[in-house]
């Protein structure tokens, strides 16, 4: 198709193309019948016209001949009257509009004009022809011109001219055409009726098909069928019937497929539902298991926290009063008492150590151990640890050698407390298991010249990019036999040392390994029976750019020492429900802060009242109080304008790192864990009061 849209043939063709099939059939039928009728009627009418014309000519010729004969003597004897009379006989024929007689020389001799003709019909035709040459009949506008010779005895004497009106002929033609048109219209009407009737036979099944197809498409109801035409809905045996049957079969197949698909999808849906139910059930189970595990874990944590608290509180009293006894100036102990007191203190510290180790292991295993790594000077940590171990080593006549001074790169990334703990473990082990008179050497190097492959255990996430600083503790002990070496890191396995009389829990190495791993370091050992053992730990090195300011803290000894007195007259408030602890602190204040006075309250509520009325300079507060706890009490102190600026120091048996952090976050000026050391408490008080004075 060319894109000539305005062309009438194209638009007519498109119009016909878009017609409904029924109207298409009707239009076709009408077109065909019209063509047939026109082809029939036009020759008939034309032929009839021709015949009528011929007949008229014949008649007029005859008439002309008669008149010519009758008028011949008049012409011959030049009698115009007689001639005119003869011509007037033509008035009987109404078709004649006029006539005239001409002599041989062309002169008009007589003429006749029919009444009502008006204009002379011969006007402009004077002297048309001579008598000899009459010419052929001529049809002119609505007129017939005819000529006949006038003869007397075979001799021409003139001519007769005749004009006939063709009006009647035209009327005849019109009548014929009218009849033809009437017949045509009638035939057309009949053809139209027939076409409609017959077209229904053809178009109805097609329409039914189209309707069914459209309905199926819109409603997706594949159970529909195209109905047949005629009686009983039988499908005709023609092409359209075949089409209908095929269409219905197609629908049937589609319906069947659709049904199968639906079945399949339903089955699938059911399966999905079942699987989903199973999945959600198992998810529920998992969730419950997780919840149970969480509950168990929480119970364990709570147990640990409680154990920590419950074990430390009595230890606090034991160690505290032992210290007080040693420090008492007014009632000096005897040397024997001092010796016993020394044993009590030592045993107490050992017990505390054991408790701490067990708790540490439990916390590590439960994942509750948190570290705060920082850049540390290895030399300082080593010196500190050696200092702490020196007393014990001295008891055993073991020489401690510090060989770390050679190395310039001595900063590692580690948790200070935990690194110290790990190193102390190694040193105390070395000291404990060395033969008397032996030597324990601490050396330090980078791992560049040591693959540390023998028995090395490394942390899960070792920082390889910066390299490790290796700390080595070498002893001159009996060494560890090879078969026992693989059990070295098993908890509570002392490798037969249980009977040796050497103190130990058997978990020191385990804790050390775990701590090192948590600090992203490695740990390992090598040992030869009879020569000694070397334990090493590697820790991530700190690059030169990361060097931090040197740590300022100093080593804190366990050994009781005389207190530095707290100068100034202060009012202090201690809120504590445990009478032993209360008594301990009261003694401390009595001995070391002689000018200050201390108030006490056994509950938070009471403490708040006292704080409001007495306006103490500082408050020491237990966290774990009956009723209102320390955090809540602090919050209330802070909301009251009268007590808002009083520094509050937390004193708690809960030494867990997260708990300490929580306390510092809540706004305590300091957090002192029980069993507290006197120095610690005094330092905290001093710091808090100094801050206050400075304000």
């Amino acid at each position: 198709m060319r894109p000539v849209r305005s062309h009438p043939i194209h638009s007519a063709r498109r119009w016909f193309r878009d017609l409904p099939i029924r109207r298409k059939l009707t239009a076709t039928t009408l077109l065909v019948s019209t063509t047939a009728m026109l082809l029939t009627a036009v020759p008939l009418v034309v032929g009839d016209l021709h015949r009528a014309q011929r007949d008229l000519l014949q008649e007029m010729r005859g008439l002309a001949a008669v008149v010519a004969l009758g008028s011949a003597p008049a012409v011959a004897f030049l009698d115009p009257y007689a001639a005119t009379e003869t011509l007037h006989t033509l008035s009987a024929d109404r078709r004649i509009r006029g006539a005239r007689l001409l002599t041989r020389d062309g002169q008009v001799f007589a003429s006749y004009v029919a009444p009502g003709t008006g204009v002379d019909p011969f006007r402009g035709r004077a002297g048309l022809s001579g008598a000899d040459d009459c010419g052929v009949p001529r049809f002119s506008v609505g007129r017939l011109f005819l000529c006949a010779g006038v003869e007397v005895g075979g001799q021409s004497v003139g001519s007769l001219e005749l004009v006939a009106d063709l009006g009647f002929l035209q009327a005849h033609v019109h009548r014929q055409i009218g009849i033809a048109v009437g017949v045509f219209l009638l035939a057309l009407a009949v053809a139209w009726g027939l076409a409609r009737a017959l077209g229904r036979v053809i178009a109805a099944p097609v329409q039914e098909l189209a309707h069914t197809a459209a309905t199926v498409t819109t409603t997706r109801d594949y159970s529909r069928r195209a109905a047949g035409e005629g009686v009983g809905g039988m499908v005709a045996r023609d092409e359209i019937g075949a089409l209908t049957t095929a269409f219905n079969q197609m629908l049937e197949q589609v319906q069947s497929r659709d049904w199968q698909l639906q079945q399949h999808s339903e089955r699938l849906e059911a399966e999905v539902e079942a699987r989903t139910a199973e999945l959600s059930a198992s998810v529920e189970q998992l969730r419950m298991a997780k919840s149970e595990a969480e509950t168990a874990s929480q119970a364990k944590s709570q147990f640990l926290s409680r154990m920590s608290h419950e074990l430390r509180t009595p230890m606090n009293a034991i160690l505290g009063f032992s210290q007080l006894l040693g420090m008492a100036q007014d009632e000096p102990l005897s040397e024997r008492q001092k010796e016993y007191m020394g044993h009590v203190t030592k045993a107490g510290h050992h017990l505390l150590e054991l408790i701490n180790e067990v708790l540490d292991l439990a916390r590590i295993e439960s994942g509750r151990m948190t570290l705060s790594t920082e850049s540390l000077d290895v030399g300082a940590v080593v010196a500190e640890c050696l200092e702490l171990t020196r007393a014990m080593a001295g008891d055993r006549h073991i020489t401690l050698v510090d060989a770390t001074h050679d190395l310039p790169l001595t900063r590692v990334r580690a948790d200070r407390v935990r690194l110290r703990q790990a190193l102390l473990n190694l040193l105390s082990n070395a000291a404990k298991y060395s033969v008397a008179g032996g030597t324990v050497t601490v050396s330090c190097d980078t791992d560049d010249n040591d693959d540390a492959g023998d028995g090395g255990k490394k942390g899960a996430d070792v920082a390889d990019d910066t390299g490790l600083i290796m700390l080595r503790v070498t002893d001159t002990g009996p060494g560890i036999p090879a078969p026992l070496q693989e059990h070295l890191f098993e908890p509570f396995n002392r490798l037969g040392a249980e009977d040796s009389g050497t103190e130990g829990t058997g978990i020191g190495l385990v804790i050390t390994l775990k701590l090192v791993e948590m600090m992203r370091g490695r740990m390992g050992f090598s040992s030869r029976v009879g020569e000694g053992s070397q334990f090493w730990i590697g820790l991530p090195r700190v690059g030169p750019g990361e060097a931090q300011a040197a740590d300022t803290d100093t080593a804190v000894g366990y050994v009781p020492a005389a207190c530095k007195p707290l100068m100034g007259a202060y009012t202090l408030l201690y809120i504590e429900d445990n009478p032993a602890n209360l008594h301990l602190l009261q003694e401390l204040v009595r001995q070391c802060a002689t000018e200050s006075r201390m108030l006490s309250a056994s509950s938070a509520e009471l403490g708040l009242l006292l704080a409001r009325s007495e306006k103490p300079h500082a408050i020491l507060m237990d966290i774990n109080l009956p009723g209102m706890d320390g955090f809540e009490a602090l919050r209330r102190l802070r909301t009251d304008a009268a007590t808002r600026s009083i520094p509050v120091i937390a004193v708690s048996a809960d030494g867990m790192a997260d708990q300490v952090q929580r306390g510092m976050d809540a706004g305590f000026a300091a957090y002192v864990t029980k069993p507290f050391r006197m120095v610690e408490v005094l330092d905290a008080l001093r710091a808090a009061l100094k801050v206050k004075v400075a304000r």
Partner: protein
Amino acid sequence: MAQGGGVGEYELKAAFLYNFAKFVEWPAAGQQEEFTLCVIGGNPFGAALNPLSSSPVRGRAVVVTRLSDPEEISRCNMLFVDALALDRLPVILQRSRDAHVLTVADIDGFTRRGGMIGLVSEDNRIRFDINTRAANDAGLRVSSRLLSLARRVLGDGTSGTAGAEGVGSGMEGNRP
């Protein structure tokens, strides 16, 4: 009518003579090869009769003959009687009747005197009277179509023509 204007009177009369021959029937016996037109008395036609010789009548060639003696009438078919032969009119008519000759003249009262066709001038037109009895007596039959054109027809028993004859005789004086 103007046919007398352009054409000479006797030329028209010659044409009339010629035409009369076509509306009259002669007895079948004694037919000759030629149709003989005779003129007796003077010759008023001059050469006007000459063209007639070339156009045949009833398939017969026309021969124009001048007569001086009435005894010669028997060889004529048509005879024009000139006024100069008026004195011998009875003899001429007698001979003509016997010889079946059609007599024509432009003499006043010719038909009343026993002539067959008399030419008259009227309203500047040439007309004619016919005496059917004289023609019948001579064994000639005049066509009814010719009769219908005649001014007067005598001899068929009608008597109302006498008055009209007076008019015709009145015009006779004008003739040269």
